């Protein structure tokens, strides 16, 4: 299919996710597709596309129903996801004629007798199928009915397969070659960029704009490269610089400025969703996210080669061990949002925990692929990509690459020896873990079916047992350092009771990992008193250590003895954690009818920690004790566990035992040494080794199994995904051996992303850079080079830039960002005025062919930084933890970020905006109103809106008010007369001398309402906010 045809197709199909909208849209399109499908070369591709796209065929009631074009697409779209050979819900597959005709689903020639029709038409009520979805449209049902009645003709060997785009015939998947630079006779052509652009303009009969004047140029290029205004002196110098290379020298000076990295890192951080909090519920702080932000700034300032920049961010720890940047850069993978509750409070074993981790990996995969490849891979999480050749299998293959990493703080040590030792230990841990896994799998093999059955039984029983305990745990003695001290507890029944049984229930507390039987004495006795002071022992366990009963009750038979008091005395205490205690959940005294006479009765004891609600004397007789809800199941569980232990002993060989012991020993040693290493500085980054937090535990490099998820549902796991990337680029291998470690997988991805044969990466980056300089990308959708994205306006220019950037050439050192900037901003295209010849507007009003420069509004950060700069308040310190623009309160639970309580006089906040502490769920209102990027999503291009709320922010925000005062004070300090003050303010703010009429009007205003107010309004001038 040719490119234009595909574009046509794209226009006909305006929405992907709006599936039924697509269905409607396609009714008209079918005739054209029928014509297209005869194209020889890509016929098979076309057919598969047809199956993707055709939803509602025209019912051709006058002709025989065409199964392949009419019925099959309906079945494919509406039925196949649940009824296929692999996943045959109701034992029914619609993939082949044979399977469809089994069991009477389709009875050729008899629609009435066909079960399929019954379930999709439904009679009076809602049809039963498709389940949980819109019913088929009436015409579709009719078509299927007609097809069956006509004999259900299904061409031999025709198999319906899940819709899948396998067509790589799209501009962005093609290999990049270096186009020939057009040779044009024109003085206007300074650079190859100009040649490509001018050729296009000539084709379209468009005329270029004049070159912008020098004041406009220096204002434009200074903001563009460093995000700050030029000083009046710098403007003066440049305007009067008669050297032929004055402009080029200006550009070089700006690229050497440390502010350059501060400006361009901001663009990068927009794309990667950087913030200093986690987002979601609680929105916890990430106090060590900033080292990644500083890494990005430094990388730009150092002009780091782009390959290196990419590789560090995906697998720097693996590819460049010992180099701190290799760890810092992994902040890229961790930059996006993270669900604290879903990871820390919910264990990975629960569905909600799995959902959180799946979404977390999705963020990593889409982050990497959107950023570097400009491809919307995340569309394939629930189904094969509808428009681009990405299958669901490949998507989950990408998830497998990140399956062992999480977002957490990890050390980066400037001491290379420590770093080396850390790496070595992490390798030891991974190796030993692998060894243990290998032993386990050997044992599994040796245990065979029996082992599997036992495990299954245990799992089932565990579900049935369901443990229950109340918040009132029981009685807990004070702790002592020896176990041979006596402790006692006594219940006064208040009356003489004819007791049949005394029952003791142990406690359950996860403290110290103990759980069931917590605090139950190792030796003890139970004595009773009839009320006459005749205390008598009825249960004697003083002579030998007792096996901890767990939650199994201890029943003492009294056979109808009259008792008034019960005393339990521990003589050998239970071990807790470096100390000893006596704890008991409940004591019950039952009569023959089973009534508990101890309930609610007073309890005395030698001592007690009395820490309600958990621990209190009264809890001993509150009628609540921890227990399994299904006792039989609990017993069977015990038996099954013992059987398992026995089986394990049988299949363990001495060799395995030795190996396991040795691996465990090495593992423990390595872990303990790792824990003792100096932690150095910490960065929030992708990590495999970190300190546990609640249910959030480090994988230590162990890969989590990643399954392909039917419809993206965690409860519908399918096959385990094979790790890999995407089949792009000629000769570029993309599959990863399943035996690789997690580090190797990331390294493979990093290398794939920087391979010179990669068709997307090089185009993606030069397009992003172009967009930031010219206002619109050569491809207008910088995160999407797929079929739903835009096509390049200047494809040859894009490819030339990609090759020149990748390989270097006459204009660029290989992969030098600074050279790329220089090339773009010294071009004649860039130097044009933003007011082009008005006649061009008729042909190309939106200026996609670049016959003038785009006028742009300053970004939120540029406005803030400029205001700080001109008012003389800016602190130019670089790097370090972010400054707050809010008052931080209540950090212990859900931090409150109180912007309205912040005082903008605080000099700590007068640094450049790149260094502010970015709160994800509760972003800065002033910045947000000015279209600052939302750090919950990748922002390849900022919105540029105009609202009355923006006007209010710039007029009345306390920041603007405070800075207006400072601006006024600054000019007042330097000049006495109001006119001079106005003059200087305009120079600082607009980089030009004011006109007389302006001085007059502004001075008159300041005279009456004060310089503070004037400065406040000057910050609202369109001329300040816009760059020509």
């Amino acid at each position, binding site marked *: 299919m040719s490119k234009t045809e595909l574009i046509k197709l*794209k226009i006909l199909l305006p929405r*992907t*996710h*709006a599936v039924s*909208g697509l269905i409607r849209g396609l009714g008209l399109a079918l005739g054209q597709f029928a014509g297209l499908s005869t194209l020889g070369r890509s016929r098979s591709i076309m057919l598969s596309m047809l199956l993707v796209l055709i939803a509602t065929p025209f019912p051709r009631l006058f002709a025989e129903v065409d199964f392949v074009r009419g019925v099959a697409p309906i079945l494919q779209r509406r039925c196949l996801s649940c009824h296929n050979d692999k996943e045959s819900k109701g034992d029914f597959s619609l993939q082949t004629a044979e399977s469809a005709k089994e069991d009477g689903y389709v009875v050729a020639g008899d629609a009435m007798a066909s079960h399929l029709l019954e379930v999709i038409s439904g009679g009076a009520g*809602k049809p039963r199928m498709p389940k*949980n979805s819109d019913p088929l449209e009436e015409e579709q049902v009719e078509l299927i009915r007609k097809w069956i009645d006509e004999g259900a003709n299904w061409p031999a060997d025709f198999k319906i397969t899940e819709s899948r785009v396998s067509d790589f015939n799209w501009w962005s998947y093609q290999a990049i070659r270096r186009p020939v630079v057009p040779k044009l006779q024109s003085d206007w052509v300074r650079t190859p960029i100009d040649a490509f652009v001018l050729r296009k303009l000539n084709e379209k009969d468009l005329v270029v704009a004049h070159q912008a004047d020098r004041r406009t140029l220096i204002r434009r290029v200074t903001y563009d490269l460093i995000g700050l205004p030029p000083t009046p002196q710098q403007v003066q110098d440049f305007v009067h610089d008669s050297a032929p290379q004055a402009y080029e020298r200006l550009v070089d000076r700006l690229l050497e400025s440390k502010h350059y990295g501060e400006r361009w890192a901001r663009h990068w951080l927009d794309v990667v969703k950087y913030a200093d909090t986690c*987002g*979601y519920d*609680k*929105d916890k702080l990430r106090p060590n996210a900033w080292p990644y932000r500083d890494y990005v700034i430094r990388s730009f300032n150092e002009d780091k080669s782009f390959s290196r920049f990419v590789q560090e961010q995906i697998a720097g720890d693996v590819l460049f061990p010992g180099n701190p940047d290799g760890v810092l850069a992994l902040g890229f993978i961790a930059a996006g949002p993270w*669900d604290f509750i*879903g990871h820390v409070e919910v264990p990975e074993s629960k569905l*909600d925990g799995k*959902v959180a981790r799946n979404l977390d990996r999705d963020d990593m995969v889409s982050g990497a692929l959107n950023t570097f490849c400009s491809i*919307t891979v995340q*569309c394939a999480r629930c189904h094969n990509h509808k428009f681009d050749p990405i299958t669901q299998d490949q998507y989950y293959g990408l998830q497998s690459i990140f399956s062992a990493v999480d977002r957490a703080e990890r050390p980066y040590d400037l001491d290379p020896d420590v770093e080396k030792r850390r790496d070595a230990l992490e390798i030891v841990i991974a190796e030993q873990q692998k060894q243990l896994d290998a032993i386990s799998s050997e044992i599994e093999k040796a245990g065979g079916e029996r082992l599997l059955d036992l495990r299954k039984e245990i799992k089932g029983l565990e579900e049935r047992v*369901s443990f229950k305990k*109340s*918040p009132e745990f029981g009685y807990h003695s004070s702790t002592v350092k020896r176990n041979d001290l006596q402790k006692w507890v006594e219940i006064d029944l208040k009356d003489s009771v004819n007791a049949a049984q005394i029952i003791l229930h142990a406690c359950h507390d996860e403290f110290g990992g103990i759980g069931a039987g917590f605090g139950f004495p190792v030796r003890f006795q139970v004595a009773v008193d009839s009320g006459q002071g005749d205390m008598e022992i009825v249960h004697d366990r003083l002579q030998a250590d007792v096996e901890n009963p767990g939650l199994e009750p201890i029943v003492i038979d009294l056979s109808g003895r009259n008792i008034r008091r019960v005393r339990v005395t521990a003589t050998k205490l239970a071990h807790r954690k470096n100390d000893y205690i006596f704890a008991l959940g409940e004591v019950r005294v039952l009569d023959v009818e089973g009534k508990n006479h101890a309930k609610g009765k007073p309890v005395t004891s030698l001592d007690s920690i009395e820490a309600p609600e958990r621990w209190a004397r009264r809890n001993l007789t509150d009628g609540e004790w921890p227990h399994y*809800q299904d006792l039989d199941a609990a017993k069977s569980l015990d038996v099954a566990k013992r059987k398992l232990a026995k089986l394990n002993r049988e299949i363990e060989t001495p060799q395995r035992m030795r190996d396991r012991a040795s691996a465990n020993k090495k593992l423990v040693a390595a872990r303990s040494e790792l824990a003792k290493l100096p932690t150095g500085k910490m960065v929030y980054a992708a990590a495999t080794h970190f300190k546990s937090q609640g249910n959030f535990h480090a994988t230590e490099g162990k890969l989590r199994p990643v399954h392909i998820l039917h419809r993206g549902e965690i409860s519908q796991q399918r096959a385990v995904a094979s790790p890999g990337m995407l089949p792009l680029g000629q000769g570029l291998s993309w599959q990863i051996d399943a035996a690789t470690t997690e580090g190797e997988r990331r390294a493979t991805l990093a290398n794939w992303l920087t391979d010179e044969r990669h068709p997307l990466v090089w185009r993606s980056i030069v397009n992003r850079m172009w967009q930031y300089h010219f206002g619109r990308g050569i491809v207008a*959708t910088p*995160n999407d080079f797929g079929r*739903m994205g835009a096509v390049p306006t200047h494809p040859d220019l894009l490819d030339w830039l990609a090759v020149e950037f990748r390989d270097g050439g006459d204009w660029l050192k290989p992969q030098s960002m600074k050279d790329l900037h220089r090339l773009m901003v010294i071009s004649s295209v860039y130097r044009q005025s933003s007011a082009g010849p008005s006649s061009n507007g008729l042909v190309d009003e*939106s200026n996609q062919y670049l016959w003038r420069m785009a006028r742009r509004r300053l970004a939120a950060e540029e406005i803030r930084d400029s205001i700080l700069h001109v008012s003389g308040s800016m602190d130019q310190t670089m790097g370090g933890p972010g400054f707050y623009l809010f008052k931080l309160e209540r950090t212990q639970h*859900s931090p*409150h970020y109180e912007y*309205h309580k912040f005082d903008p006089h605080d000099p700590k906040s007068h640094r450049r905006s790149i260094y502010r502490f970015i709160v*994800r*769920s*509760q*972003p800065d*209102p*002033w910045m*947000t109103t000015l279209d600052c990027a*939302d750090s*919950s*999503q990748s922002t*390849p291009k900022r*919105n*540029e*809106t*105009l*609202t*009355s*709320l923006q*006007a*209010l*922010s710039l*007029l009345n925000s*306390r920041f603007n008010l405070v800075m207006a005062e400072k601006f006024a004070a600054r000019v007042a300090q330097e000049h006495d007369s109001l006119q001079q003050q106005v003059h200087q303010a305009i120079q600082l703010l607009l980089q030009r001398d004011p006109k007389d009429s302006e001085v007059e*009007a502004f001075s008159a205003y300041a005279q009456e*309402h004060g310089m*503070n*107010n004037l400065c406040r309004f000057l910050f*609202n*001038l*369109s*001329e300040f906010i*816009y760059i020509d």
Partner: protein
Amino acid sequence: MKPMLDRRDFLRGTSSGFGSLALAMMLQEEGYADGTVKVLHHPPKAKRVVQLFMGGAASHIDLWDHKPMLEKHHGEKSDFGEHVEAFQNGLGPWMKSPFPFKPYGQSGKMLSDVVAPLGECVDDMTFIHNLVGKTGVHSQATYLQATGFQRPGFPGMGSWVSYALGSINENLPTFVVLPDHRGFASNGPKNWGSAFLPASSQGTAIFPQRSNPIEDLTPQADFATAEGDRAGLKLLSKFNGQFQRERPGDSRLEARVRSYELAAKMQLSAPEALDISGEPEHIMKMYGLDRAGAKYPDTINAAEEEEYFGRKCLIARRLLERGVRFVQIWSGNDNSFPRRNWDSHENIERDHGPLARGMAVGTAALLKDLKQSGMLDETIVLWTTEFGRMPSTQGSKGRDHNPYVFTNWLCGGGVRGGMTHGESDQWGYKPLDRANPTQVYDIHATILHLMGLDHKRLTVRHDGIDRRLTDVHGHVLREIIA
């Protein structure tokens, strides 16, 4: 691609007032607009929406969804008939509601005592008792109900409505949010952010109890004076107008001049809308605002909740009257201690009692007030929360999360009254008909439908995907439409 870029270019130049034009243009481009219906997909029944959002997850079975079986089997060991995965394993015995239920209105709808004030309104309300969520995690569940997606990065329903329909009154924000005065619920302002839609469609938070209820509405500086501001705006208009005239053809510059005119109007309109001092006594009393200067205890109590929620409801009515399109009112803050939201793991009676009473007094007043002025016919009121709570106990008096079923109700704006659509099972554990539950997408689709919008056609291309409020789901609940 071209139409999309043109639309974006157009939107770039709009102020908060031009959203409706945006949609009209979009529809024309795609050939949907014809001579009779210029803007909307179909004739609307409603013009405005109020969304009441209970943070922390309000219990359906203690407020709206009466379960006699729980009364009968109270204290007995719970048996769900299947393995249940609960958020905090709260699967203790069945627990009846601590609040008694009784019937109200013509429809005889059973309501809990703590929401009794709404008894007078039940014949105008439609209850949906078979709503199902996707997760028991607060944050994701809040996102799902607020934006239709479990993850951050998507616009709230109010943003979609603002984007599509724009303002009725340019002098006020189109989408206003009244957060809980104690703090934000899960996700904070991300629940009403515009995400990839234009910033003009984001919710504007109003804090009626603060000295500066709308941030930046007025200057808080000694040197600022009304006169100085008037003169300053004139100055701006002159020079910004001049700058624009020297650069013909750039609609943004013109829009910017206009945005300052609108801002000045908003400075006058907004304080007037928030000033309830002129409301008559009986109205104040109806909203529970007749205890001026009252002092409240430190513990959670019904009177204080009435005052706070009632104030938001009254302000909501005033905003709606003045043309605000979408008002979102929150009850309940973050999960901090002591608990001031609906996440009653420990004690339903202690937390749900006062919160529900406060919510019910304010809400009933709002419904009655809108009804008597006739506005209820064009105003949809939606009550929603994150998910429901389990019919079993957790600890002794609380309930764990129940994402498997919960309740929403709607009122006004073309919604039928006095009916129940979809029921939960006898325990309130899952929908009675598990195969046909209601989902948030259906609620969203229905609200858009009532506003004259087809949820499948209101799309915006973002990073290669045509995004909708309802993702790839959603059915209009035709049965509940009058």
